[in-house]
């Protein structure tokens, strides 16, 4: 399907956002609200020798100063319970919250923060993942063994989560290879950098608290508050006003409990609004830096005989949702290839950096960059065209992937064909331009989810969903699904989201899962109303319910469109009798079987439901005098199943590609010798701008996918962020004559590579 001819509809939150009538969390004002500010560690590792808040507490206008002593002594974390709300005894990264102030205004709050006295006994800073795993490395968490943790995690000292995926006999596969290629790559950490810095507002009424938060995952936020403040779910209500972008950066539980605790202590509403520096430094949501080593053996005909990969992933100081990163990174290090003998070992390594957490396709863009750069090295080592090498070795329908999963109908080969054709791969180019190609993959996440749908007496509908819209358009698309189920117009439905006390559970705007799972829920809920409408219409039209067709806002008898009644009229009848209310969830599809592989540290990330595939072909231009790279054109082909909302899908691909260009060339966090960020500001952390955006051609390969979401849809929000940096790397390597082995491939690093300066 060509995107331009697909049906278009206006997203429900669009006019609000464009005209400025929409309200974001920081826009909320509540009578008597106080301003919250945090005291941060400012150092990367130290034992708290003295913490004195008395001067701050005594200041006029200061209503509360809280530390870990003022909240329940609970260790929390989704995979490893290794952290507390406020620092307890030891601080482990610069953005760790030591104390929180609520005061009458921002200036007073800041003065109070400055008046808090903290003295530290400095501890050695763990600033490097390789050093962290040496036997005599200082431990970030000396008491790691006593922490609660998910049963499947394999932990050892600074290694917070080890995962291994193994199949066949790698030693033999390498020994039998015609050529073996070894490579090392280093990816720096980077950031989601949503335009809206986060905000939290909390207000207590009696023993219940309402928290407005700019979160992508309101139910996770609720769990965090309930766990750390020891409250039952039904007394904590999380509401999300419009969200100003997330990109994963607002996943997880963050500061909702801190603000709720301040509000409880002061008996006033309290509001926290981050500035840009805080947004960079404090949350446990940085995209993880990773060090890679690859070894791939190929036969003389170009088929892969074996691959070994080792990954050291920077966990940072605490294990947020990164527990699963080692296994999913291991999958990406093996890649969407047929490899008879494979082994990937991935370690999630504690350091004194800001903690890592899910940012758009966690671990995938940088691992795809490293693996696909290595793949081009392999192809060139045997004199084979890199695209031909991928056609030969990529997984295909009915084939077996590196974790022992046999795939149903998948579109990776079509993606390669579409992307390379769209890019004009093989055409003659000026000598400062080249086209690079990379393939990527990403799972769909099959999880529980719920929604209600109701039709009121006037025939207008509401979808009350637990899903969270973070800008992807997935929640917006729910209207289309409900409308189609009921033969109505999408515009007839309003969306009610996000309020954890109103709607059923959903995992949130994370893992590209909204349409896949909440779409299933909405279809099920709307289906219940459709059945009610058919029964009502059957009575009115004196026909059998099975013969009633719902279409174009009417219910009519099949074969005789004139014999019908408006759905609005049926809704009016229902309003005087049994109300039109549907609820839905649906059973999420289970994981596919793995055969012949063994997984250590298995968190279910090696068996992928409805996997998505992609191929990006990118034309770049290199300024050889300076190393500055400009992306001239991107051709992106995606198998994400059926595309239900083409305009939204196009926006997802365009945004993800631009984010991928930034990750490739300009976006990287650098640390000083003490593990503190050197470029925690938008001037020095270089996001791409609209002026940098190249033309992006998008090709959707839509095939019938087993176990997909509604109408065969898979996810889409993360997949287009996976292969861009890799494709840019492969174009650059042709121009430079060697890969640029560190991400981001900044102009200076490219120039160094051209001049054969030391690479990592």
């Amino acid at each position, binding site marked *: 399907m060509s995107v331009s001819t697909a049906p278009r509809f206006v997203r429900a939150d669009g006019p609000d956002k464009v005209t400025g009538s929409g309200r974001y969390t920081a826009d909320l004002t509540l009578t008597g609200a106080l301003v919250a500010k945090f005291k941060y560690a400012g150092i990367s590792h130290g034992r708290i020798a003295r913490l004195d808040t008395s001067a701050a507490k005594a200041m006029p206008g200061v209503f509360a100063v809280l530390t870990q002593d003022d909240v329940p002594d609970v260790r929390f974390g989704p995979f490893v319970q290794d952290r507390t709300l406020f620092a307890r005894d030891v601080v482990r990264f610069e953005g760790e919250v030591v104390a929180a102030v609520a005061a009458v205004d921002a200036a007073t709050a800041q003065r109070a923060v400055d008046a808090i006295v903290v003295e530290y006994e400095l501890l050695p800073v763990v600033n490097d993942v390789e050093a962290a795993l040496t036997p005599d490395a200082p431990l970030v968490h000396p008491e790691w063994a006593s922490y609660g943790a998910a049963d499947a995690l394999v932990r050892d000292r600074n290694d917070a989560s080890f995962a291994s995926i193994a199949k066949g006999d790698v030693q033999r596969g390498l020994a039998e290879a015609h050529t073996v290629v070894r490579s090392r790559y280093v990816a720096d950490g980077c950031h989601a950098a949503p335009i809206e810095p986060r905000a939290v507002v909390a207000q207590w009424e009696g023993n219940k608290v309402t928290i407005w938060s700019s979160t992508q995952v309101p139910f996770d936020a609720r769990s965090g508050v309930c766990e750390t403040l020891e409250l039952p779910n039904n007394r904590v209500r999380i509401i999300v006003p419009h969200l100003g972008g997330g990109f994963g950066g607002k996943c997880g539980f963050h500061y909702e409990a801190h603000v709720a605790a301040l509000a409880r202590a002061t008996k006033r509403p309290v509001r926290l609004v981050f500035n840009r520096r805080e947004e960079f430094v404090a949350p446990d949501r940085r995209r993880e830096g990773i060090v890679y080593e690859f070894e791939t053996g190929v036969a003389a005909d170009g088929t892969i005989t074996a691959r070994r990969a080792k990954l050291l992933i920077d966990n940072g100081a605490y294990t947020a949702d990164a527990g699963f990163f080692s296994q999913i990174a291991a999958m990406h290090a093996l890649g969407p290839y047929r490899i008879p003998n494979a082994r990937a070992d991935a370690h999630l390594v504690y350091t004194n950096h800001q903690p890592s957490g899910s940012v758009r396709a966690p671990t995938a863009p940088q691992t795809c960059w490293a693996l696909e750069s290595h793949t081009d090295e392999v192809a060139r080592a045997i004199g084979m065209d890199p695209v031909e090498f991928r056609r030969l070795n990529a997984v295909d329908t009915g084939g077996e992937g590196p974790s022992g999963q046999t795939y149903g109908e998948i579109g990776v080969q079509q993606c390669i064909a579409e992307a390379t054709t769209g890019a004009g791969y093989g055409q003659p180019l000026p000598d400062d331009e080249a086209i690079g190609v990379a393939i990527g993959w990403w799972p769909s996440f099959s999880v529980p989810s719920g929604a209600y749908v109701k039709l009121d007496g006037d025939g207008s509908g509401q979808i009350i969903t637990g899903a969270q819209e973070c800008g992807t358009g997935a929640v917006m698309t729910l209207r289309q699904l409900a409308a189609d189920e009921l033969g109505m117009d999408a515009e007839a439905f309003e969306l009610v989201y996000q309020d954890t006390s109103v709607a059923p559970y959903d995992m949130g705007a994370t893992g590209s899962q909204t349409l896949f799972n909440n779409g299933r829920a909405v279809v099920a809920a709307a289906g219940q109303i459709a059945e009610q409408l058919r029964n009502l219409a059957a009575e009115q039209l004196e026909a059998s319910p099975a013969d009633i067709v719902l279409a174009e806002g009417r219910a009519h008898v099949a074969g005789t469109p004139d014999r019908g009644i408006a759905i609005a009229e049926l809704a009016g009848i229902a309003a005087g009798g049994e109300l039109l209310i549907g609820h839905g969830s649906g059973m999420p599809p289970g994981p596919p079987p793995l055969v012949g592989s063994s997984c250590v540290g298995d968190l279910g990330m090696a068996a992928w439901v409805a996997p998505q595939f992609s191929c990006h072909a990118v034309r770049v231009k290199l300024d050889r005098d*300076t190393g500055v790279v400009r992306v001239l054109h991107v051709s992106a082909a995606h198998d994400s199943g059926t595309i239900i909302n083409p305009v939204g899908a196009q926006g997802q691909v365009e945004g993800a590609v631009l984010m991928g260009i930034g990750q490739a060339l300009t976006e990287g966090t650098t640390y000083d010798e003490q593990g503190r960020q050197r470029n925690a500001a938008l001037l020095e952390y270089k996001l*791409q701008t*609209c002026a940098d955006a190249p033309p992006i051609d998008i090709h959707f390969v839509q095939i019938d996918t087993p176990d997909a979401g509604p109408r065969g849809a898979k996810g889409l929000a993360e997949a287009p962020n996976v292969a861009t940096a890799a494709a840019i790397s492969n174009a650059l390597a042709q121009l430079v004559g060697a890969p640029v082995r560190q991400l981001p491939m900044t102009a200076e690093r490219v120039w160094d590579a051209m001049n054969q300066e030391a690479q990592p």
Partner: protein
Amino acid sequence: MSFTIARTVEDALAAMATGARPIAGGTDLVVGARHGKAPLPSALVAIDRLRELKSCERTADGVSIGALFTHHDIETHPLLTTVYAGLADGSALVGSPATRHVGTIGGNIMNASPAMDTGAPLAVMGAEVELRSLRGSRRVPIEQLWTGPGRTCAEPDELCVAVHIPAPGERANSAYLRLEYRRAMEIAVVGAAAFVALAEDGTIAALRVGLTAVSPTIFTGDLLGQVGRSVADAAAVAAELSSQQATPISDVRASDRYRRHTVGVMARRAVEAAARRAAGETIDIPVNRAIGIGAAS
């Protein structure tokens, strides 16, 4: 804190005589205060309504640009974009369209950042800054104005009211390029401006080069030894001398080594572009997009 709105230049000078700092677009002062670089001064005088400082006029020996002329005014002005093209190259690279519509040439000059985009082109064109106070008026060659990062020789009560640029003369023009990692909201990693006058035979008659972000203030030099040589030779020498004489720092944007190399590249390209313009060729503003970094294919 006091905030005065000046209706006349004299209003502004009177306020400055009592310690007020002038504010026009606020793109340095306000942004700097928000980022904690320097607190807002306790007394401000708004000069943004002073019409007489918004002019741009031909004079007997060149052009006078009012201090409140914005970067947008400059990048779209028929005379400045042709005869004084290097300045337009610089203004067209500042920030974003929003910044360029409020940011003024006077503010840019007096902010005295070593990374400013209009400084090097003004310097190579031999511009002078007019400073006025209740005590009188004086003209200062622009290179003498800057005494360090963020520092000028202006007294606290002196207001920059205009910048005067001598006409380049026949077969002469300028160009400015910078190294940038993205095409908007960027700051020069390094930059270079060149003023080139050509003899009738196409050889160099005069050559000045100015460098951005490689020393505490804009660095300029006359390449007298290049007179009579070909443009290509002069450009190569300019590149070499620029790399040699720059004293760049290492920071999060670039290493000193890389800056030293790339400022030479910028200088060479600036000389080449200025020479092409001097020979009558039109190169679009900004020259960065037309032939340099980030040029489309």
